[in-house]
């Protein structure tokens, strides 16, 4: 699937993560800002990459600003941002959930 527009979900508040997805040209690029980057950076990126893969998106830039979000939050925010960007918010993505 292809990104139609830039979209965002999540906040910068504690325990949350703000995800912005936009059209990319060079595969899946994930730019992460996080206080726990050293310990959990790889895991956070992996969670995001798994959601992107489940949506079958080839080229996308993801900007993630993490404030200590749990895995389930990261997943939920990424799904919502992606669905907005793909213009598919009206259709639940059961296979991803």
């Amino acid at each position: 699937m292809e990104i139609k527009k830039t979209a965002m979900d999540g906040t910068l508040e504690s325990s949350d993560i703000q995800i912005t997805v936009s059209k990319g040209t060079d595969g899946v690029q994930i730019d992460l800002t996080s206080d726990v980057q050293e310990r959990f950076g790889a895991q956070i990126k992996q969670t995001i990459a798994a959601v992107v893969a489940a949506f079958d998106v080839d080229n996308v830039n993801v900007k993630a600003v993490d404030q200590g979000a749990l895995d389930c939050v990261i997943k939920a925010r990424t799904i919502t941002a992606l669905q907005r960007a793909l213009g598919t918010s009206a259709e639940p993505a059961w296979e991803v959930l």
Partner: protein
Amino acid sequence: MDAEIREMNLHNPDEFEQWRSFLSGLGIANFTADEVDPLDGTIGLFEGDRLMGTGSYSENVLKYIGVCHKTSENGAYFNKIVSTLLTQLGQQGIFHVFVFTKPQYSDSFQHVGFQEIVHSESAAFLETGPTSITDYLAQIPKFAGESAAIVMNANPFTLGHRYLVEAAAQQSAHVYVFVVSTDKSLFNSQERFEMVQAGTADLKNVDVVSGSDYLVSYATFPAYFLKSDKSRVRYQTTIDALIFKERIAPALNITTRYLGTEPHSETTNVYNEVLESVLPPTVRVKIIPRKETAGKIISARDVRLAIKDNRLESLDTLVPKTTATFITEHRAELQERIRKGMKIDGN
């Protein structure tokens, strides 16, 4: 106590006073009523009726962010304010967002995903969003070897601009002409870009590029840093000059910047002075005297006045044919913009 975000209406005198006294308590003072007018939105974070944090935006620039830390945990209110503003802008389709702040607050913004573009002793300039200055620089055509550069608003492109570009093109292997993007001029950014392209098409070693958001508009800079209008221009142009020197010039191998003299504009004179003091030795500054016609310097302002007064026959002595054609074809629309209140007597 739970804190709640509410919209603030600064045109309501009571709310304005609450907002103003809150910010001045944080040392953000000296701003004037005309700085409040261009704000597109302001939010407040309240504990009951007590204002604990606030933030505003004007187009894609965050402004007047102030937070009281007395009752909140480390940064929680700050994050909530910035987050709410980014969400509101995102809902309007604006994701690429800038902030000017004092250097000591740069880290707080970096903590929530902003990247610093440059900082001076008195101010830092940061951005966040899906694109950055690195992406902007990556899409500009590269030239092998040294280049010169000119930055212009070209409102519209005159024979004076043309003279400056020609001089640079003769003295340099390659010239970038950056056209300022900010849309606060009679001719909009796309029109100005096209006029510069058309007016320099015959000069083979000239590339016209958009200044995008990185050749900053004077209008976006918050004056609360400053004491007077003159120092506002000085601070603003220092940031502008630093972006050019530290980010743009190294990426494009620009070693010379050409400027035109400006006998009639105080703002441009201050700008030229700042560029001369900031850019060397990284970037040489060459100042070219303004072109005259019949003993009078050519000014874009005179062109705009001619459009207003419908004296289009006088254009031939002021602008190249390409610009004259554009103006003739769009006369009605341009005159309509002036009638609707577009200011034309600035620089």
